[in-house]
């Protein structure tokens, strides 16, 4: 049970950790951190209401200051929620109402680049676009390019086990992170070893990748980096059905071909995104290969053979260009969220190849049943692997009235996740669980998994002070 000390006492404790100007209990600051990009929190905050108003916001700028903050919060028995760019879409960055927001954006230094090993050691609060710019200046790229590149941080990517659009070549964050520096709830510092692989027991770094700040605050990480690609080629194909598209992608990746971007749009999203370039009813498969010119050319030409073999017809370059130009846009979702009774979200699930098409069909049907004529559901696949892939099921719906929005949102998510879990899939591929999806986490993990998670969490954070609102199972 968290004890709520008086504000003066709390401020005194935090001032012992940080300079006073980097501690704030000002309402304007607290309101600014009372939302992330999760749909309900975003709508509530835009309307001037938020149930996630922290008691204080702090801005540490070194690892030792993070330790000092954790120590001070421990003394006061106050919860902590790390905050990066606020781009999370599942509510993991939302504060405990009696807690403290720890804005990590001042920890944004690149500590070292090892050009021989192609690694960079970077502090967790750096914004993705800033990291990429700094690496680009050295002729490097981080290879991780999520849609939220301009608004998310390295720490957020790690906390959510993120995946970027170019992941089929570069991997997701779990592949990219070699080691982490973490401040535990005890304020103790853990630094895992930067090695390409290790059999020294379970991977300790992996414990914090995807933990959403529930086990500690990641302050820095060593990640793989890559040379700036010398070549980039894109091709887009119209294909008769989403199922045929999935089959083409399976053949591509199981042949060992690794285009950086592999995106398969269903007919609804394809005609929305690429109007004028694609006939109604067609799915669209977009491939972008980059890197070494020889390998890039070979990857695209061989992938093309597979797509054509399944009836794919090449579209012009406009599709790839349109995607590259607009790939970070979430305007479609935001427009719906801005309407009084509108709600929208992109649910990203994953499954193995043998059940991927069925997962898509079943989720589409279940969500469509709930949404009915009040909205629509559509989707695409992205982030593919030898054994399966990720599907985005995107929905937009208008509730009867604004007070119904939360219920409708929940109903759609319940239908979607129940369908996904029934097919054996996971309810999140890279957005994480947060507050939004935790209701279904126990079903995905089962009693054994839940027990294990609780035991781990309690062992590391016995007082339950690290981001307590997230991943409760």
């Amino acid at each position: 049970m968290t004890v709520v000390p008086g504000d003066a006492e709390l401020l005194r404790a935090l001032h012992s950790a940080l300079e006073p100007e980097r501690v704030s209990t000002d309402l304007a600051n607290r309101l600014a951190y009372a939302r992330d990009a999760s749909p309900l929190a975003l709508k509530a905050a835009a309307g001037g209401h938020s149930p996630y108003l922290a008691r204080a916001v702090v801005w540490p700028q070194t690892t030792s200051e993070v330790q000092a903050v954790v120590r001070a919060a421990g003394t006061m028995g106050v919860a902590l929620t790390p905050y990066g760019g606020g781009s999370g879409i599942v509510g993991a960055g939302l504060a405990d109402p009696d807690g403290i927001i720890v804005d990590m954006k001042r920890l944004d230094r690149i500590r070292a680049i090892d050009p021989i090993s192609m690694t960079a050691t970077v502090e967790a609060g750096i914004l993705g676009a800033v990291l990429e710019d700094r690496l680009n200046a050295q002729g490097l790229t981080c290879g991780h390019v999520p849609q939220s590149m301009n608004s998310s941080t390295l720490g957020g990517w790690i906390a959510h086990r993120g995946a970027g659009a170019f992941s089929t070549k570069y991997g997701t964050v779990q592949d990219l992170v070699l080691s982490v520096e973490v401040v535990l709830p005890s304020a103790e510092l853990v630094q895992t070893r930067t090695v390409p692989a290790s059999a020294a027991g379970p991977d300790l770094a992996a414990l914090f990748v995807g933990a959403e700040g529930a086990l500690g605050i990641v302050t820095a990480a060593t990640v793989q980096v890559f040379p700036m690609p010398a070549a980039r080629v894109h091709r887009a194909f119209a294909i008769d059905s989403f199922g045929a598209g999935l089959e083409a992608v399976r053949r591509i990746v199981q042949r060992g071909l690794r285009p950086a971007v592999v995106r398969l749009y269903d007919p609804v999203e394809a005609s929305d995104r690429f109007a004028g370039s694609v006939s109604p009813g067609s799915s669209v498969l977009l491939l972008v290969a980059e890197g070494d010119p020889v390998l890039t050319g070979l990857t695209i030409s061989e992938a093309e053979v597979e797509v054509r073999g399944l009836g794919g017809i090449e579209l012009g370059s406009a599709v790839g260009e349109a995607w590259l130009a607009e790939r970070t846009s979430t305007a479609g979702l935001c427009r719906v969220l801005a309407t009084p009774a509108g709600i929208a979200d992109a649910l990203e699930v994953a499954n193995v190849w043998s059940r991927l098409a069925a997962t898509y069909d079943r989720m589409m049907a279940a969500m469509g049943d709930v949404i009915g004529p009040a909205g629509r559901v559509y989707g695409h696949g992205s982030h593919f692997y030898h054994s399966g892939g990720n599907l985005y099921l995107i929905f937009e719906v208008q509730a009867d009235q604004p007070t119904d929005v939360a219920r409708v949102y929940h109903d759609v998510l319940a239908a979607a996740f129940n369908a996904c879990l029934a097919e054996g899939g996971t309810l999140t591929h890279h957005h994480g669980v947060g507050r939004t999806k935790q209701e279904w986490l126990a079903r995905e993990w089962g009693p054994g998994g839940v027990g294990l998670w609780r035991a781990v969490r309690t062992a590391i954070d016995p007082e339950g002070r690290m981001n307590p609102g997230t991943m409760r199972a």
Partner: protein
Amino acid sequence: MPDSEGLVEAVDRCAYCHDQCLAGTPELLATRNQSAAVSRVAIALRTRRLDGRPWDAGLAERVFLGLNDGLQFESCIYRREGHRIEPYIRAARAEVIAAGLAPPSVARVQDMLGATGNVFGLVEVVGEPLVSVPGTPILVHDAASRALNPAGLRAARELLRRVDGRLSELPVASCGAVEADLGLVDHARRAAGLMLAALDGLPPGPVVTTDATVALTILAAERSLGRPVNRSVAHLSQYLAGHPALPRPGRPVEIQVAYHDSGPLARGLGLTAEPRALLAAVVGGGLRDAVPTGRRASSDGPLAGYPRPDVALTMARARLAELAETGAEAIVTAGPYSLRNLRAADPGLPVVDLWSFLAAGWSTEPDFALAGLLASSRSAIEGV
């Protein structure tokens, strides 16, 4: 905030946005405080309007903290629809000023405008052409160039004489850009109106300016005031880069320089290639580009009246670090405000205006002239 120009809708769009402009928000990058995010400012404006609350000093400072230099627009999810934040921020600033809550920095600008007609306190006779030769380019400048980059202005005259033989020149007190940005709407309209009236009285000839804010203001005033100037308006880099009498490049001078895109020039006028082409003709392969660059170049700081000099300094220092990382021996920029902002931040290497650099580079002994220019700039930095 008036709804007549769709400002309420624009605020709503930002309030419900996913913050894709976060990494393009200079004041957020400088403060690391989420309250500086465009969406958070929009939410504060929206809820104040919906609740009918009066302005308070905290929100007043936040609306003046925005740099408004167009950087957010480069990653705005509504950019295809022409969505901009500047109109509603400026409207909010006007309301704050009307409510008597202008930050002291803005009040000082108001005082200066009242006393001298410009924000730099220059006492001078303006509004009449210094030289007027029909058919020649008209070099239009306001107090910003005269106060912040007088050497560059002299060099610009030299460059124009070099390619055209003669020029006309129109000094005005203010083009109105700073006033418009600060929400001093009446001052801005008056300044722009006086500038256009002065231009009306001049014989035919294209307008050329060394300050992108002057060109932008003329082009905007044509639209907003309905006053066509009936002559072409160009930034000097644009004018020179397309000029048939441009000096032919000789042997490149062996100097490594990094070019910094000023916001008004790169994002306002969209001119990124022209200044580089002019520079490259002098230094050849010695032209370096920082990352990010072009329209996405990091901001160097504000125009004037900024409430937080510490934040402005942080912005300039961050940009200088990016420019220094190129290994350049000097930084070149074209905007008077950029020149001031970068020079004020202990740059550690010479920061030179484009016009002085080109004038030296076009001289008969460019190596010697450029070495001298950089040495004098370095001495100025070191206080020698």
